[in-house]
């Protein structure tokens, strides 16, 4: 099957702050890859680099063998039609109904007749369980429903790859269960490649074929869920078990406690 995405020795900074220092990884085609890591470790940045919304300062980001940073404007937009991204907020267009949100990519990129668009949208809404909510406004949806509607919009052009940015954040257990099931089923039935960025270790491990743990500007662990559970890195184990102290310290860096209490000026 090969790899759909290859990231080679990437360096990336946000202002003065370094996010990646020589990160290399691959996203295997047709699999679900989970990306785990503490907050601020650059998980969402990874998705934006793959979608070329951000450009690496050094290194290569290849999608289907193409260097995303070297594509011209129109070639980049053509390539983006082959991928899709589910944003944390859903990012539904507030002035459109759920139905129109899902129909939007079809209306923008195809010349399909209206009756075919109606049929495709109903099928996609049915696949996420929201066929009955097509007439609702995004503001009327719960968080879980908004993400499912956004998921329907993400798959409406049948992309090769979907990137999920924190799909389970802030969801109740039922919504979370629905989203886990949907990601798993859609990947299998549509033959997609999925990248799931999340903090929810249990959910991501339950559906991922391949896992990557990011921390300290690098990849600190990689492999199948089983390989990761057996990984000897304390950092990986701290993250998987949610231990409050360890390589990622409980205390933020500060001067000695007694000196601070005894009135030394800050």
């Amino acid at each position, binding site marked *: 099957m090969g790899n759909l995405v290859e990231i080679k020795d990437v360096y990336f900074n946000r202002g003065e702050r370094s996010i990646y220092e020589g990160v290399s990884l691959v996203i295997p085609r047709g699999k679900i890859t989970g990306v785990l890591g503490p907050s601020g470790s650059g998980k969402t940045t990874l998705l*934006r680099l793959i*979608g070329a*919304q951000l450009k690496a300062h050094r290194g290569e980001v290849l999608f289907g063998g193409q260097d995303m940073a070297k594509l011209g404007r129109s070639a980049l937009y*053509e390539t983006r039609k082959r991928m*899709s991204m589910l944003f*944390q*907020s859903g990012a*539904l267009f*507030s002035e459109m109904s759920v139905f129109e949100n899902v129909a939007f990519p079809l209306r*923008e990129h195809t010349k399909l007749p209206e009756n075919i668009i109606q049929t495709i949208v109903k099928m996609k809404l049915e696949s996420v369980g929201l066929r009955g909510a097509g007439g609702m406004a995004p503001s009327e949806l719960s968080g879980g429903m908004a993400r499912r509607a956004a998921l329907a919009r993400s798959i409406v052009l049948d992309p090769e790859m979907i990137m999920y940015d924190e799909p389970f954040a802030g969801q109740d257990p039922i919504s979370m269960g629905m989203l886990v099931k949907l990601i798993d089923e859609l990947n299998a039935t549509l033959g997609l490649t999925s990248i799931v960025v999340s903090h929810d270790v249990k959910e991501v491990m339950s559906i991922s074929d391949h896992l990557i743990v990011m921390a300290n500007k690098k990849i600190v662990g990689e492999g199948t869920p089983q390989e990761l559970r057996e990984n000897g890195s304390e950092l990986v184990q701290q993250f998987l078990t949610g231990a409050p102290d360890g390589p990622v310290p409980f205390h933020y860096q500060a001067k000695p406690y007694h000196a601070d209490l005894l009135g030394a000026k800050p």
Partner: protein
Amino acid sequence: MSMFHLLGRNILNNIQGVGQATIMLAQALIGKPQPRKMLPLLIRQLYVVGVQSMLIIIISGLFIGMVLGLQGYTILVDFGAEQALGPMVALSLLRELGPVVTALLFAGRAGSALTAEIGLMRATEQLSSLEMMAVDPLRRVIAPRFWAGVISMPLLALMFNAVGIYGGFMVGVEWLGVDDGAFWSVMQSSVHWQDDVMNGVIKSLVFAVVVTWIALFKGYTATPTSPGISAATTQTVVYSSLAVLGLDFVLTAIMFG
């Protein structure tokens, strides 16, 4: 950091901002025309930006015209020149107050709304989402709003002028007793189509470009947080107002100087 460093950094930041705003506008406007997609978006924005600003423009125009009528009469009557009230009201409105006050009101009403709307689209990742759907947000979001602003503002200024002149007529003629025929005929002979009406329209067009451009750029580059959007909205009103007043002097000097 020394004062000179800060000053230099501020100047460089401002130059960079102008460059970014120019690139944003060029990318939004230059490209293959897509009338089938763009026309419905433009019509919707003409409604939001133009039609929804009409009420404030008409009411303000009426009151400003009434004030001009009242102030003009009290000054002119001392010289027995109250027949000149018509041209005084009309020229004040057509040359200056119409374009300038419309632009200031437009910046406060439509400009701030544009900035807040686009800033919120940035904060809720709708612009990123468009990019990832291979839809250029500059063409889809910025361009129709820009053209709507440019088309709307001169029309709003003309409405402002018409209503203002009627306000001056109500106070001057209906209330204070200036001769009806003198009011209109002296106005007609004093106001010139090219020098007064068209120059006012040109001013209004320039203000429309500047105000809409500032509003869109500030929204597009707003920090995607509540304080960020709030600051961008404030900056839109402040920068637009200063730009309108400064440009008004330059244009007046060129047109009437």
